[in-house]
C-alpha cells in the first residue's frame, strides 16, 4: 500500500528509502508527509486555478445568458436560457472583421518582424565580443526599463512627420517642396520599430533570446567559421535551426503582447477604419450608446463579455494548439545569465 501511494505521488526522496526495510517507521513517516504535501499542492494549485480561470468563466457565462436569467437569483454559472444576441451586438460594435483584419495586418506582422530582427541582434550580442558592447548592454536594460508611455509623444510626432536624420527637411529646404510623410494610421508605425528590433517590448525578447544563445554550444559555429562559412551562413544554417525552442516561447510572448497592445494603438491609430481590435474593445461602451442606446446595466455587461470572448478567442485557440510545445519549450530556454 505504502509502495502504491509512493508511486502515485512519488517525489524523489521517498523512492530512496523504499528498499531500506529496517527503517519502517521512518518510511511511513516519509510516505505520510509526501501524501500530505501532494494533497496540499493539488489543493493550492486547483484553488489558484479557479482564480486564474475566473474571468474566462465569467465572460463565457455572461455572454450567453439571456436577459431573463440576469434577474434570476438561482442562475449563477450555467444559464437556463441561452441567447446569441450579445454576440450579434458585439460583432457590430467591434466592427469585428475589419478590426480583426487590422489587428492581423498591423500587430501580427509587426510581431513576426520583431521575432526575426530580435533574434539576429541577440545572436550578435551573445556570440561576439566587440568594442562598445557594454554600452549596448546598458541600452538594452534601458529599453526594458523605459516604458513606451514615456516616449510616446515625441514618437507620435516623429511618425506624423517622418524625417530620418533630417534628410527630407534638407530636401524641402533646397527644393522648397513641402514633402511631408505621415505614417500614422498605417501599419508602418508598428513595422518600422519592429524591423529595427525596438518594437513592443523588444528589450525583453532580445534578453530571452540572448540567454538562449549563450547556452547554445559554440563548437558547431566555430567549426563552420573555420570551414569558411560567413556570418549569415552560420546564423541561418546553424543558429536559427537550433533555436526552435526559444522561438516558440518568444513568438507566443510577442504575438500575445502585440494582440493585447492597446496604448500604442490608441495613440497611433485615431482613424476608426484603422483601429485594431484592442482599441475597438476599449471603446465599446461609447459605441454601444450610439448603436443600441445602451448606457449600462446587464445589456452592456453582456455585450462587453461577448466582445471580450471574441477578442481573446483567436489567441486562446492559438495557445491551445501550441500549448504543449510552449510548456515544453519553457524547460529548455534556459534563462540564467
Amino acid at each position, binding site marked *: 500500500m505504502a509502495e502504491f501511494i509512493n508511486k502515485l505521488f512519488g517525489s524523489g526522496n521517498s523512492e530512496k528509502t523504499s528498499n531500506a526495510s529496517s527503517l519502517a517507521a521512518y518510511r511511513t513517516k516519509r510516505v505520510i508527509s509526501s501524501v500530505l504535501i501532494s494533497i496540499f499542492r493539488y489543493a493550492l494549485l486547483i484553488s489558484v*486555478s479557479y482564480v486564474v*480561470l475566473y474571468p474566462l468563466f465569467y465572460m463565457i457565462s455572461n455572454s450567453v445568458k439571456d436577459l431573463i436569467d440576469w434577474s434570476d437569483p438561482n442562475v449563477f454559472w450555467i444559464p437556463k436560457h441561452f441567447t446569441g444576441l450579445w454576440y450579434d451586438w458585439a460583432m457590430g460594435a467591434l466592427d469585428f472583421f475589419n478590426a480583426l483584419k487590422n489587428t492581423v495586418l498591423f500587430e501580427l506582422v509587426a510581431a513576426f518582424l520583431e521575432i526575426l530582427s530580435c533574434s539576429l541582434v541577440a545572436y*550578435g550580442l551573445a556570440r561576439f565580443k566587440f568594442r562598445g558592447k557594454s554600452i549596448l548592454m546598458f541600452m538594452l536594460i*534601458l529599453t526594458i*526599463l523605459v516604458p513606451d508611455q514615456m516616449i510616446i509623444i515625441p514618437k507620435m510626432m516623429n511618425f506624423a512627420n517622418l524625417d530620418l536624420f533630417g534628410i527630407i527637411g534638407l530636401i524641402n529646404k533646397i527644393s522648397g517642396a513641402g514633402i511631408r510623410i505621415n505614417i500614422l494610421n498605417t501599419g508602418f508605425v508598428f513595422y518600422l520599430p519592429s524591423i529595427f528590433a525596438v518594437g513592443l517590448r523588444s528589450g525583453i525578447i532580445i534578453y530571452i533570446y540572448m540567454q538562449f544563445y549563450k547556452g547554445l554550444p559554440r563548437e558547431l559555429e566555430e567549426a563552420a567559421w573555420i570551414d569558411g562559412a560567413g556570418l549569415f551562413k552560420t546564423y541561418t544554417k546553424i543558429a536559427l535551426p537550433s533555436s526552435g525552442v526559444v522561438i516558440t516561447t518568444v513568438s507566443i510572448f510577442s504575438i500575445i503582447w502585440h494582440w493585447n497592445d492597446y496604448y500604442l494603438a490608441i*495613440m497611433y491609430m485615431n482613424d476608426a477604419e484603422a483601429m485594431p481590435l484592442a482599441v475597438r474593445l476599449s471603446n465599446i461602451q461609447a459605441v454601444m450608446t450610439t448603436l443600441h442606446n445602451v448606457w449600462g446595466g446587464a445589456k452592456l455587461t453582456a455585450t462587453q463579455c461577448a466582445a471580450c470572448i471574441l477578442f481573446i478567442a483567436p489567441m486562446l485557440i492559438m495557445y491551445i494548439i501550441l500549448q504543449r510545445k510552449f510548456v515544453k519549450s519553457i524547460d529548455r530556454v534556459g534563462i540564467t545569465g
Partner: protein
Amino acid sequence: MAKKDKISKPKKSIHARGIEALKERYGWICVAPWVFGLIIFFIIPIFQSFIFTFCKVTLVTGALNTKFVGLENLKYIFTVDQYFPDNLAAGVGTFAYSFPIILVLSLILALMLNQKFKGRVFFRAIYFLPVIIASGVILGTIIGDTSSVSNVSGTTDEAVSANMINVTELVEWTGLPEKIGEYFNDAITKIMNLVWKCGVQIILFIAGMQSIPDLYYEVSKVEGATAWEEFWFITFPSLSRVITLVTVFTMVELMTSQTDKVIKQAYNLISSQMFGESSAILWVYFCIIGAILGVILFAFNHFCAKKWE
C-alpha cells in the same frame, strides 16, 4: 570582402587574431540595425520628451511648436492640477503592495509547477492563461470602469473579482465584526487581481529554474539538505539574474498598466493637447519608480545575490 580577410589574416598570426577581429566585425553587423533603431526610435524620443518637460508645447498644423518655459510645467502639475498629487500617491501606494506580492506569489507558484507531479503540463498551461484572458484591455472592459481612460478621479471598481469568493458572509457567520470581513474581502480581492498579473513572471522563473544543473541538487541530497535549505542555498542564489529580470519586468508592467491612475491622467492630458504637462507627469512618475527600482536592485545585489558567490 569578409572571405578575403578570413583567408589572409590567419597567415599573419596563428588564427586567433584574425578570428577575433572578424568576430568583432560580425558582432557589429548583427547589432547595426538595432543601434540605428535605438537612436531613431529610442534615444532621440527620450531627449525630446525630456525637453518637452520644460517647454510649452503647442500643436501647429503638422508640427510642434516648443517654447522654453523652465519649471512652469512641474509647477503646474504639483500646484494647479488637483488630481496629480493624489494620483501619484495612489500609484506609488498600489505599487508598494503589488510588487512584493507578485514577486513572492509567482516564485511560489513557479516552485510548485517546477516539481514533478501528475498534471504538471496541464497546470503550467493554465497558469500562463491570465496573460491572454486577463490582459489590460479585458480587465479595463469587464472590471466595470470602461471609461477608464477618460475618467481621471474615478476609483477602479473591482466588481468582477468582488463576486469571486465572498468572505464577508463567512466572517459574518463566525460572528466577527463586519469591518474585519470587509477588510479580508478587500485584501483577497486585491491578491486575486495580482494573481492575474503573474503569468509571464511564472514562466520566466520556471525557465530559470530549469537551467540550474541537477548536479547541485544531487549533491545537496547526499549531504542531507532539507528542501528549505535547498531553496535558500541553491535555487534562490542561482535565480538571482532571473529575479532581477522579473523585478524590472514587473515594475514596468505595473506602472504602465491601464488601471494606473497617473498613466490615465497623462493620457487625458495628451488628448487635450497639453503635451508639456503630460511629459512632466510621466517624467516625475518614472523618476520616482526608477529610484525605487534602483534601491531595490541595489539592496538585492548587495544583501542577497553576493552572499553565496
